[in-house]
């Protein structure tokens, strides 16, 4: 078992190394002069000044020296300064991550909940109306690009009927006022409380429910209610669009794995023991059918902070996807490097956690 995780950690580090290398070489392939962002305000013909800047930032060193220097900077988590926002890359990124998470976390929670419910219904009664509708919908939604669906709904709900706002995360002119210290205090109290409860009652459920509840409590305690309502109002339309395709894909997954599990021997055993059909369905079939969901949720966890570029672009949502897109368009490569690396780290960590969780839930998966 230990060997398996060691191998996994090594391969994750390898992936990060490749991303760092790509990060180093891609800007040098894209820009004819990689020092371009450093020339802010320097006129085209001030060649001597430009040369000075190149020299000062180490662009005249041999490539291998530059590469090693870059590695050193990455290991000290020094990503430099974004040339477009004139601010530290860390600051710019962390001002955007919460906004992405507002969209992705809420839409993921909603689509998982309803997806499981719908999938269970469809898998229970195969070939019935719910199942047929699900199959038909999954065929149609894979053929419809979700960004087009978003465009049509913006036109319908925001322009023709004016029910929802169409751009931004808050009404223009407003900014979110958040009491950071209060947020942290309430969150810490909630987490400690749920850990204590878990130790007292020895039930993992305490942590699974306690952490989200304390997070919500901290949010409501630190942000004024009017702001929360405003953000929710702006997030409603994008969340609804992503939930629509999310529910269907999760439901299809649950439905297929329900059907696969129904054919297993242990279901036959449970039936043969004479258990009531309801017990077999909920205790034996349904619980096992949720196993593949772990992998899937783990994979999409990685996208939580990344957000969805298309949704964020359509709704002008100030999230990470939009930030990366702007960074690409502005040639702000210090920022895009940091974002890509952050995404890669998140993906690798999420993969690792998914693996651990899966082993915990499904003891059949042993060393590979």
């Amino acid at each position, binding site marked *: 078992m230990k060997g398996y995780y060691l191998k996994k950690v090594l391969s994750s580090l390898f992936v990060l190394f490749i991303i760092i290398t790509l990060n180093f070489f891609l800007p040098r392939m894209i820009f004819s002069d990689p020092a371009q962002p450093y020339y802010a305000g320097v006129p085209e013909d001030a060649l001597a000044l430009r040369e000075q800047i190149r020299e000062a930032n180490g662009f005249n060193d041999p490539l291998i020296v530059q590469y090693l220097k870059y590695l050193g900077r990455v290991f000290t988590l020094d990503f430099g300064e974004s040339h477009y926002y004139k601010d530290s890359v860390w600051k710019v990124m962390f001002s955007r991550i919460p906004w992405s998470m507002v969209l992705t976390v809420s839409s993921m929670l909603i689509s998982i909940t309803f997806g499981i419910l719908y999938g269970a219904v469809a898998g229970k009664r195969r070939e019935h109306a719910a199942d047929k509708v699900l199959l038909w919908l999954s065929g149609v939604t894979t053929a419809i690009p979700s*960004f087009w669906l978003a465009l049509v709904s913006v036109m319908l709900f925001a322009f023709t009927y004016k029910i929802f706002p169409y751009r931004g995360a808050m009404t223009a002119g407003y900014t979110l006022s958040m009491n950071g210290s209060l947020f942290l205090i309430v969150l810490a109290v909630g987490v400690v409380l749920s850990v204590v409860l878990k130790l007292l009652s020895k039930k993992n459920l305490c942590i699974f429910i306690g952490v989200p509840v304390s997070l919500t409590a901290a949010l409501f305690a630190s942000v004024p209610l009017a702001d929360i309502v405003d953000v929710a109002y702006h997030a409603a339309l994008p969340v609804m669009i992503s939930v629509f395709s999310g529910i269907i894909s999760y439901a299809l997954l649950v439905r297929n794995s329900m059907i696969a599990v129904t054919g297993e021997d242990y279901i036959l055993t449970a039936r043969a023991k004479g258990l009531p059909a309801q017990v077999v369905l909920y205790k034996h079939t349904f619980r096992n059918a949720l196993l593949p969901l772990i992998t899937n949720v783990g994979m999409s966890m990685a996208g939580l902070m990344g957000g969805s570029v298309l949704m964020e672009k359509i709704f002008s949502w100030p999230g990470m996807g939009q930030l990366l897109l702007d960074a690409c368009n502005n040639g702000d490569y210090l920022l895009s490097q940091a974002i890509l690396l952050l995404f890669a780290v998140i993906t690798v960590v999420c993969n690792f956690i998914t693996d651990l969780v899966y082993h915990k839930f499904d003891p059949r998966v042993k060393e590979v």
Partner: protein
Amino acid sequence: MKKVFGYILSALRAIGKFLWKIITHPKGRVGVILVGIVVLAAVFAPYLTPYQLDDYDIAGGLAKPSAEHLLGTDKNGIDILTQILYGARISLIIGVTTGLCVTLLGATLGIVSAYFGKVSAAVILNIINVLLVIPTTPLMMIMSNLSSSYVMMIAIFTLIGWCGTARMVRAQVLSIMNMNYIRAAELSGGSKTYIMFRHIMPSVSHLLIMNCALSCAGFMIAEAGLSFIGLGDPSVMSWGKILVAAQESAFTSGLWAWVLAPGVAIFITVFGFMQIGYALEEIMNPRMKRKKDVKRQGIAPEAAAEAVFAEMTDISEDEALALKQEYVTGGRSHECARN
């Protein structure tokens, strides 16, 4: 000369037979018709519309759909229908080329990783693992700055997209690798490359063809998305680009056709390719054949089973009887047990 002619004729006949099979399949028929319409529209775009992509007419801009402009015009007075017809070209080119490239690369690497020894397997599997973990969308966004030409887009899609196909092909090849006909080919002295192309490739071809059709559909959507966020080729018209322009000015002027038409075009093309893919899966995978085929030969299923059992020479008569009871008279034996 006559021989060559004969080969060509038989190849043409085989292709015709294959097409006929797709057309007679209910899903395939829908797919072929939809894709056919789009292909014809793309090829004959200059003859189907009297307008050009550079017919600027600022005064007639943002027009509602009319007899002159069936879907209206954009901000610069360019006919939307013309844009959609020309956009079909780039969508088809990128979708089909990428689908083919991904399938070919994935199939070759998948087979090589399964069949050509441990070193190649380790290398390819490691690359696949890396590609599966790398966040592809951000990487694609950054890489598309390399060059904005659509050839670059195809290359990026191929470089990032082949690993799914390779994994699927590898699994399939591993399951057939130890079958007797592969062994026989090895024993009779076939080289690994020969066996790979002559024996293994055909046995996974049904997967490949299906996968090709489905990934064409997927990459068309991806292309529309990328050109929507402004990373497409600026010199060619694409459906994603029409939608960008529509987002800028169609909303406020209520031009529904401008927003709806590109989406419908994407849907028709992608749905058509998907239907062809599903039809191919059913046609080419013998396990998914419907029972109708047994009946069509004029043999009742039970009689067919009898014939099969009669040909089984490697089991004893008792075993054959037991099998027969299990499969042929299944229903009745259950009744006997209950009594």
